[in-house]
């Protein structure tokens, strides 16, 4: 049974006891836990208990009475959303934007900085929209109704997110002032209230629009959204079709044309605008009271709307569909120079008037209301509760923090809100098998706890291939997380060792500069040699290079192999010298001395004398050291072999000594 579950997932084991057996586990009937009471099942793993309770997947069906049922194991995921395929684009792209924002120059002050931040905000929104498109395409093309439902839900969630973000951009990031504020709000409404788009298209594309039954609805929509040119264009068609109302039409058209609107540039001040508007308003008033439009109720209602008559506007509720559309229309026609701080009053009253006590506000409405009231923290808090994923609040808060709007709010456990949200979001990413790479960068930009979180998370990423391990290691090395480097290299080296990949194991221990492990590997090699009588993996040992120096044992291994090579090439004096150095310089482990001495035997028995007197004395000393050290050795079972070996050695050494003394004593040339 092979589990594959990530570091931030929780395993819940549920055991049901049959009724006959006695007490029944109280949990099953209440799963998924609505409350946060501790569940009697065993939880382990990281992640806050609250998050786990919220994310419990799978519900428990009650089984029949009496019989004990089989246990079930649930895999509880912290963050379901990150596994949705189409949202991956959102996470990846927003990561790029996030990084760009963190790296952007802080020195840009004033207007250019604000423009830069607004651009960042727009980038985020375009990513949300792109994701919405993809999700929509997926919803349309899939045939599985459950999946389709899921996609459609996602589309509406994304659309709501973009709506909220757009409003926050207008009010907080751009901080539009009176005048441009209204224009932005109009754009916002036009972009997001699209329930009427199909109706508009239908009318516009029909042969004679003015005869269409929804014609006046469309004109009203244009007027309500302040799209004066389009409204006038449609009205002209009506006027052409209906010459009797030409007079009325001309006046209405004129009024609509002359309507003063705030401009984006600095061409007029607010007071100028207000004056103009006042004049225009009075003119409209006059026409209405004169009864100019009395014969055509549609045009009359349009005139009333132009005058900002709330009742007239409210009549067109279905065309506006939302209270915030109502709000903006109201503002357009009664207070075009509204200041940001005044919005809250209008917002509250608009919502009350629109909903009229029939329905209560939904969470989205509350969030928008909080935005209109400039309660940034409230917005973030509400969004956190409503949305299932930290993506939105983390990125929005980060952006607002860069706008220097969130300075003063510190949470009780020390880190500020931005950091808290980023940490939560990034932690969620880490439970994904490949999105964790994005999480690393987020942790990097959390000054207080980011590093600690990263250290904990990064060690728990499952390392299925070497390439993944290399990526993780590179991340750790770049951040000087030496502990983690060592631990990961050790894990990989152990795995390699178990799979008998000694070369890989060595390469991992070189990366971690882990001398102890290198010693372990060398011991393995030496053990193999003792058992098989020859070296495995010669290509590795022959080519150790400078890494040989990592550990003494490794050096010994390399040198020992070199001895064998020298012997094979019949370079006996050098081989002899090397062998001696290995023993006298104490590079060789004591357990190996016997083997080394046995290796010396053939050299001693050569026809030609190889070891000098000095060397022979050294060898004898080594032998004595070896045998003197453990007198118990003689008492072992196979001490026959041992004693024979020792005796043979002594004999060979003595003979060699004899020969060499004679040889050295002989005067040359005689």
């Amino acid at each position: 049974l092979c589990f594959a579950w990530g570091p931030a997932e929780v395993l819940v084991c549920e055991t049901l006891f049959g009724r006959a057996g006695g007490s029944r586990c109280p949990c099953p009937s209440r799963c998924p836990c609505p409350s946060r009471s501790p569940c009697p099942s065993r939880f382990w793993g990281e992640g806050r208990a609250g998050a786990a309770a919220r994310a419990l997947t799978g519900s428990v069906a009650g089984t029949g009475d009496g019989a004990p049922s089989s246990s079930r194991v649930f895999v509880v995921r912290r963050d379901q959303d990150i596994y949705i395929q189409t949202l991956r684009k959102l996470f990846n792209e927003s990561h790029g934007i996030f990084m760009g924002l963190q790296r952007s120059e802080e020195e840009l002050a004033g207007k250019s900085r604000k423009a830069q931040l607004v651009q960042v905000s727009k980038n985020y929104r375009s990513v949300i929209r792109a994701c919405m498109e993809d999700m929509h395409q997926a919803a349309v093309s899939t045939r599985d109704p459950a999946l389709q439902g899921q996609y459609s839900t996602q589309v509406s969630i994304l659309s709501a997110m973009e709506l909220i973000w757009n409003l926050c951009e207008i009010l907080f990031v751009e901080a539009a002032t009176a005048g441009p504020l209204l224009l932005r709000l109009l754009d916002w409404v036009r972009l997001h209230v699209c329930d009427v788009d199909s109706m508009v298209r239908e009318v516009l594309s029909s042969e004679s629009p003015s005869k269409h039954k929804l014609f006046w609805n469309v004109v009203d929509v244009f007027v309500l959204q302040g799209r004066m040119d389009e409204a006038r264009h449609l009205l002209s068609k009506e006027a052409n079709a209906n010459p009797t109302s030409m007079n009325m039409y001309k006046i209405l058209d004129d009024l609509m044309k002359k309507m003063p609107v705030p401009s984006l540039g600095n061409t007029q001040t607010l007071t100028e605008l207000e004056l103009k508007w006042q004049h225009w308003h009075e003119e409209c008033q006059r026409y209405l009271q004169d009864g100019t439009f009395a014969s055509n109720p549609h045009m009359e209602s349009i005139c009333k709307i132009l005058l900002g008559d709330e009742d007239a506007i409210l009549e067109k509720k279905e065309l506006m569909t939302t209270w915030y559309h109502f709000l903006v229309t109201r503002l357009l026609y009664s207070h075009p120079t509204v200041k940001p701080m005044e919005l809250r009053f209008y917002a509250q009253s608009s919502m009350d008037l629109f909903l009229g006590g029939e329905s209560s506000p939904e969470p989205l409405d509350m969030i928008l209301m909080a935005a209109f009231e400039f309660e940034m923290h409230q917005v973030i808090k509400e969004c956190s509760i409503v949305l299932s994923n930290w993506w939105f609040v983390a990125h929005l808060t980060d952006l607002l923090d860069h706008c220097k709007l969130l300075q003063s709010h510190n949470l009780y456990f020390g880190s500020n809100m931005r950091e808290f949200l980023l940490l939560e979001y990034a932690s969620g990413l880490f439970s994904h098998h490949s999105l964790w790479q994005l999480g690393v960068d987020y942790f990097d930009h959390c000054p207080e706890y980011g590093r600690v979180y990263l250290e904990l998370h990064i060690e728990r990423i499952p390392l299925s291939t070497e390439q993944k391990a290399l990526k993780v290691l590179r991340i750790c090395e770049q951040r000087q997380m030496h502990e983690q480097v060592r631990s990961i290299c050790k894990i990989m080296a152990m795995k390699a060792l178990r799979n008998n990949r000694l070369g890989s194991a060595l390469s991992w221990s070189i990366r971690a500069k882990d001398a102890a492990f290198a010693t372990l590997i060398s011991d393995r090699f030496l053990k193999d040699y003792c058992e098989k009588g020859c070296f495995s993996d010669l290509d590795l040992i022959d080519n150790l290079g400078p890494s040989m120096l990592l550990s003494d044992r490794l050096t010994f291994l390399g040198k020992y192999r070199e001895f064998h090579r020298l012997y094979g090439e019949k370079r006996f004096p050098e081989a002899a010298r090397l062998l001696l150095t290995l023993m006298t310089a104490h590079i060789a482990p004591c357990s190996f001395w016997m083997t080394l001495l046995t290796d010396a035997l053939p050299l001693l028995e050569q026809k030609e004398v190889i070891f000098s007197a000095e060397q022979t004395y050294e060898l004898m000393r080594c032998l004595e050291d070896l045998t003197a050290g453990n007198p118990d050795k003689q008492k072992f079972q196979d001490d026959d072999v041992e004693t024979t070996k020792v005796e043979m050695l002594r004999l060979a050494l003595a003979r060699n000594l004899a020969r060499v003394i004679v040889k050295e004593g002989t005067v040359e040339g005689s």
Partner: protein
Amino acid sequence: QDNRISVWSAGDLGNAGLNGEYHGEPHLLCDIQHNGDVMDMQFLDQERIVAASSTGTVTIFRHHPNNQTLSADHRWEKAHYHVDQDTSCGGAACTGVVCNNPEIVTVGEDGRINLFRVDQKDAVRTIDNADSSTLHAVTFLRTTEILTVNSIGQLKIWDLRQQRNEPSQIFSLAGDRVPLHCVDRHPNQQHIVATGGQDGMLSIWDIRQGTMPVSLLNAHEAEMWEVHFHPSDPDHLFTCSEDGSLWHWDTSTNVSEKPSFLHQGGRSTAYLSHSTMNQSVVSAWLSNDPTKDRMEITNLIPNQTLSVNSLDVLGPCLVYGTDAEAIYVNRQLFA
């Protein structure tokens, strides 16, 4: 884990955009599920793709252009595996694959080299324990010889005609045995080989002489994942790395007369002189004349964030993929 092999269309030739430059985004033509991570992949011929998986399986996929689908043609399971007592999985990642129709050679984390033929169910030849460490990449040197690189910094030549399971030649880096991750052979001059290492260093080797590289060029700040000579214009070399950059190395000699092809961001040009160790010959890659050999190196990625894992180049087109789950296509490499 939901891994897929996908075929994309990166803008048709017949679809001339607004002013000939706007090619539009690549769009997905078809895809198919793949078991395990795709570690390496190569076209076998016009219609077939060989993919190496992290589960140790090698699969041939066939692309059907008329109805735009992919299907799995043939699969060699457990091409790479560890002989392991503990874990039940036992599969070892297949790290590199190279094709020369009808032969396919694969190497893996188990140090094994497999030679497959397209029509045969089992491997034609397997060299067990060819290497005691992980083999990271393989490429053909000649029709019967292959080059492999491993994680103890060795470049080995294997002669597939011979029956013995030993490399015919071993080259290694001079100093530290830094793991080598990628290898490519010069398209025309078969003795020139380029490898990329874990420390981001690009090494150029002349395999006719010596056992050490001819040049060592300090390139990236992190692992170099892939190195490719341009198939038709081998004075150009491309490398991509974990540090998120993709470098274009240009040794065409007339640097001054060459038109500038920098349409993409950051121009970080550097004029390098090689630190060479061997005298040599005709090719600019091996030349060591400091007055003549100037190499222009350009980073083709303006805002680098995450690793560039893979690249490929053909004609004027360059394709690369990053860890940010994005694929980039550059169709005017030498414009």
